């Protein structure tokens, strides 16, 4: 059982509920989760973090000392998933016409509860409302020298959900993450492998920029992100939060990103 915050498609309201098994309890009633039109529980800006898994950085090998990088990253390297990328649980991820596979980035989303500027590591979690699951989709690309807007900011490239779990129920630094494609386990990792733990990441990011209520900071993407093709059902599970499921569909089979 976990306390969650959720929102429905077509509504700007956020509701408090409780998840028990396959049911969401809300206002004294129980609803089957799969029948609910849940929407992405996002009201702020989504910031991604590059190379925050030990395995992802070590895979870079000596390249971090060579051109064009020249040295390993010092401060958190962030990017933005703009609003055109955000979709909810169950909505289709559009596969651009010219692409054949997409990279699935299984990320813990840290949802900010109140304005956080220059917070200390020890107090960082006081500024967190809870956690959600984010699929930080990318078109596969090798170079991380220049900003990856063209690869990471396509329409529908940031499924978020199904809800936000209250922070009281979660230890963000030891959460199992699993990615299934068509029900086959393709990736497993844990936030125990983060280079910057969640509190440390919050401290280092808010040292140079304010995170506001409703903003979501992604803890990072584990190494070897699985690839998905058109038609694939993608499921990201994060321990204690639930799972986020979306199907990849060819862009030209959708109307304005929606499958009707």
């Amino acid at each position, binding site marked *: 059982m976990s306390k969650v915050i959720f929102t429905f498609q077509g509504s700007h309201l956020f509701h408090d509920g409780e998840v028990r098994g396959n049911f969401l309890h809300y206002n004294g009633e129980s609803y089957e989760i799969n029948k609910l039109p849940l929407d992405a529980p996002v009201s702020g800006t989504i*910031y991604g973090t590059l190379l925050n898994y030990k395995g992802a950085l070590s895979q870079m090998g000596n390249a971090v000392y060579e051109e064009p990088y020249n040295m390993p990253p*010092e*401060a958190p390297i*962030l990017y933005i998933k703009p609003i055109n990328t955000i979709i909810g649980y169950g909505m289709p991820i559009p596969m*651009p016409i010219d692409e054949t596979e997409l990279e699935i980035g299984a990320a813990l989303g840290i949802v900010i509860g109140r304005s956080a*500027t220059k917070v200390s590591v020890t107090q960082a979690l006081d500024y967190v409302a809870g956690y959600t699951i984010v699929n930080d989709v990318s078109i596969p690309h090798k170079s991380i020298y*220049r*900003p990856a807007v063209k690869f990471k900011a396509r*329409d529908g490239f940031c499924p978020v959900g199904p809800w936000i779990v209250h922070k009281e129920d979660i230890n963000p630094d030891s959460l199992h993450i699993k990615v299934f494609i068509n029900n086959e386990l393709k990736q497993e990792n844990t936030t125990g492998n983060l280079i910057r733990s969640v509190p440390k990441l919050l401290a280092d990011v808010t040292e140079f920029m304010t995170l*506001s209520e409703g903003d979501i900071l992604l803890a990072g993407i584990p190494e070897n992100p699985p690839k998905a093709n058109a038609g694939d059902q993608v499921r990201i599970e994060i321990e204690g939060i639930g799972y986020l499921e979306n199907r990849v569909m060819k862009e030209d089979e959708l109307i304005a990103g929606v499958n009707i």
Partner: protein
Amino acid sequence: MKRARIVYGGSIHHAKEHEGNLLLDNGTLVGEEEVVWLPPVEPKTVFALGLNYADHASELAFQAPSEPLVFLKGPNTFIGHKGQTVRPADATYMHYECELAVVISKTARKVKAEDAYNFVRGYTIANDYAIRDYLENYYRPNLRVKNRDTCTPIGPWLVDAEDIQNPMNLTLKTYVNGELTQEGNTKDMIFSIPVLIEYLSSFMTLNAGDIILTGTPKGSVDTPVGAQVITEIEGLGRLANTIVG
């Protein structure tokens, strides 16, 4: 028409320029000195261009890019006209960047360059400060350089598109403490406004209110604490900003 978002009497108003004063949405006429200026458009998705003027690219010892160098900025970084921008204590080189900002009018997807101006609502001025000490070669320019709180003044006005005959031929000037330190013209952009709208909308949907900061010409100098920085674009006005510690 020149439009602004301001705070007056404890509330946020939309306002229009009226003979040197501000005509608020409730009909009140107030002086420019009596208001607090907000960004003229509430920033949502904001694109910024790096190295979009050949002279600035060579000033920074870069080849001009073959494809637009685009990055995104968050809402935390924007402040209005006459605001204060914080210079970190350890910064050794912090410079302004006077940029023409293009505001999108409606949803835009796969727009051709020849139709692009139909998707422009208007123009404003942005000062896209950079702190070069924090540059790292990952997703360069990284957000620690380009998305700091207070480091992107924008305004004062959103000027309607129809009032600007040719946005690709506007003089840009920056003054630090009254001295002219940067001068260029939007005609020297490598990727023009229509090309940028075609490029961005070719792979993602642009929304009403999205903003594109189109890059800066050469002439970057360090701005110490106390510097009064004015970024000016022909026909759009003057955006004032003060560097504080």
